[in-house]
């Protein structure tokens, strides 16, 4: 760590995203960032795993297809990965978009293959979020959890275990704790 890159670790975009130079983002044109999102080092985002289009719809041929959509104030810790899930449907294999809403924290080393991660979700370190998982708002997933594929996790759940199950509820007073604005401000080149 003695020799720091002159420009600092993070590239800051116009919309306030802080993206580590050492992140591994593949298929950038298929990724939407809502702004004010932190992507730390060694994070992999697989924007290249697109939906298989058997016949190109005549409508949106100009707009880029979306593989990963991310809202505002999300924090992706070191070494986590976002990967659009894939499955067979009606005889064809296709990947489906991975959508992440606002104020989502993903701990280091966690691998996310969900279909949807709602707002104010906190995922601990070294979790595996199975394919096509739907996580609603205000959910905490404790570290080391393996969330099984296709599960729906309702709002205000605490999830842990292998396979992950709802082990508790988020208390009324914990709601504010999911806000990531302060944490977003604390990350950057000058710290």
């Amino acid at each position, binding site marked *: 760590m003695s020799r720091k890159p002159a420009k600092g670790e993070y590239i800051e975009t116009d919309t306030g995203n802080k993206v580590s130079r050492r992140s591994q983002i593949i298929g950038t044109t298929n990724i939407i960032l809502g702004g004010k999102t932190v992507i730390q080092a060694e994070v992999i985002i697989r924007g290249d795993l697109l939906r298989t289009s058997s016949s190109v719809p005549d409508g949106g041929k100009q707009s880029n297809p979306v593989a990963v959509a991310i809202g505002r104030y999300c924090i992706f810790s070191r070494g986590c990965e976002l990967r659009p899930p894939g499955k067979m449907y009606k005889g064809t294999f296709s990947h489906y978009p991975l959508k992440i809403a606002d104020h989502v924290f993903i701990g280091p080393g966690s691998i996310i293959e969900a279909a949807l991660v709602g707002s104010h979700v906190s995922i601990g370190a070294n979790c595996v979020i199975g394919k096509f998982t739907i996580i609603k708002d205000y959910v905490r997933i404790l570290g080391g959890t393996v969330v099984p594929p296709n599960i*729906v996790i309702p709002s205000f759940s605490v999830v842990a275990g292998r396979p992950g199950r709802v082990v508790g509820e988020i208390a009324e007073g914990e709601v504010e704790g999911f806000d990531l604005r302060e944490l977003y401000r604390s990350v950057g080149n000058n710290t």
Partner: protein
Amino acid sequence: MANFTPYTYFQCPCADSVLPTRNISSDSPSAASGTSDQDERTFDPRAPRSNYSLYPLEHLLYCEDCHQIRCPRCVLDEIVTHYCPNCLFEVPNSIVKSEGTRCTRSCFQCPICIAPLSVSAVEPQPEGHGVADTAHVGQYVLNCAYCLWSSKDIGVYFDKPNAISAQLARIKNGGGQVITPRDRRKDREGRTREASMGPSLDDDGVQEDDGPKLDPNEVLDPEGQFSNLKSFYQSQIAEASPTSALGFTGGDYGYGSPGALSRIMGIYTGGTFADKKVKSKKANFREARDALEGLQIVDLASDADAIKKLQENRWQGTTSLEQRAEQLSEAPFVSDLRPLAYVLRTKRSKRCKTCRHILSKPESKVQTTRFRIRLVALNYIPAITIRPLQPLAPTQRSLLTPRKAVQFLLTFKNPLFENVKVSIATPAHTPGRFKSKVTVLCPQFEVGANTDAWEEALREGGKGAGGEKRRTKAEAHEGQNQAEAGQVWEQGRNWVSVVVEVIPPSIRMDAPDFVKTEEHKNDEGPLREDEDVVEIPAFVRVEWEADAAQDDDTGNLASMREKDGREKRELAYWCVLGLGRIARE
């Protein structure tokens, strides 16, 4: 273990008011001393009862009418909505009452690993699968994507991919048809009609006319048995007591209704009056005699079957304790397992147990996460955060060195829009076998008022002076690195940091006698779980002036009110500050 995060727990005052109702024999010393001088003693965070009264601030509510903290133990929960956690469909109360608290659509959990099951189509197989009409029946199965269990394993196939619950209720493991309660009822009605024609009760096995499916000696599944038993005894009750002593007619004697249940409970707890009545009625009762009435005679051959099955399927074929616990009926073998319908979840509102005012009320719609009312303690009492005064180098162990003074910063953040006066009191030594010496350098101070969110935003826009001031002040202190007694360490708009100094004890079990505490001499047991954590009980008193409450019918507050419509408020409670773990020598 190496990573210790400091924590603060708050004691809900309801713990004081609830005294143990039963007197344990006086020879158990803890019970005797625990109740008598509760008020005088310092609160011991390690006392067995403390576990039930300590909560993180986020878990506490605040009653604006009682002006008191409310914990999960002193609130009443009321169900607002039942919903399925998988399909997120709201289940109306009427359905919950009639169908029970499980999802009645297509939501199931794997009986092996509790992961969700999904419906998938069975690929048509050319060779057929042993099922009579493969082309027509059973094109769908439930699959677990986690452990690969499939309803094929228990021989259950479905005709259509929706309403699995209704379909499953009709299929036995192995594919046989379940006789539904409705069929049973129909059959029963037929038989009672028949019985009323001939006065003698029909004997086993003489049923001929419309009994192609119901056999008095059939082996019932638990649900069928329950429904038979229930209807049999219901009819018995109806016959025995045309108008029951309990005040309702025997005809609609529903054991399922909560009213009836509470009355039945009343029989047991009540006096001898009810007992007598029940006894006198008993004479008229007849017990169930065959399968149609719910009687199942244990078949000794089934034991032999089970042993044979065990020999064939070995360990792999048996179920684990967890798997059995989830099943509705006994399931010793993997082949007996049934998919588990999701248990419904609830949205609940919370009321203060004392004054019945609502403290928290979520929106009733399943998909919304807003609250109509949310009185959380976080918005009323100052949050306390703890961090070491001297930041540790990452390489350094975060354990506390015995007999070496260490200083921590306690930061009080005021959520109220008024200035508050805070006083903290701690015992000089923490309770327990290993006593840490505790000194709060500034036990009394005032914390500034909170401001509106937009005001905060304004400050931030101009890169607030508040933030700057704070830094310089802290830096000024860093030179000497020594906190002054009676002085606040750092201060911000609505927060204050004070220093607490702790001298942790040695936690050696083999220490010489003269350094041991009294408690340690009396109890030479090995080190208990978390006994090496420095936990400080702290009594916090918060005082502030607030606008007088609108509904001032509470007389005791009136005396405190001043002329300008302001009134003094105070709140006092015990906290536990978990500072760190002591290193072993």
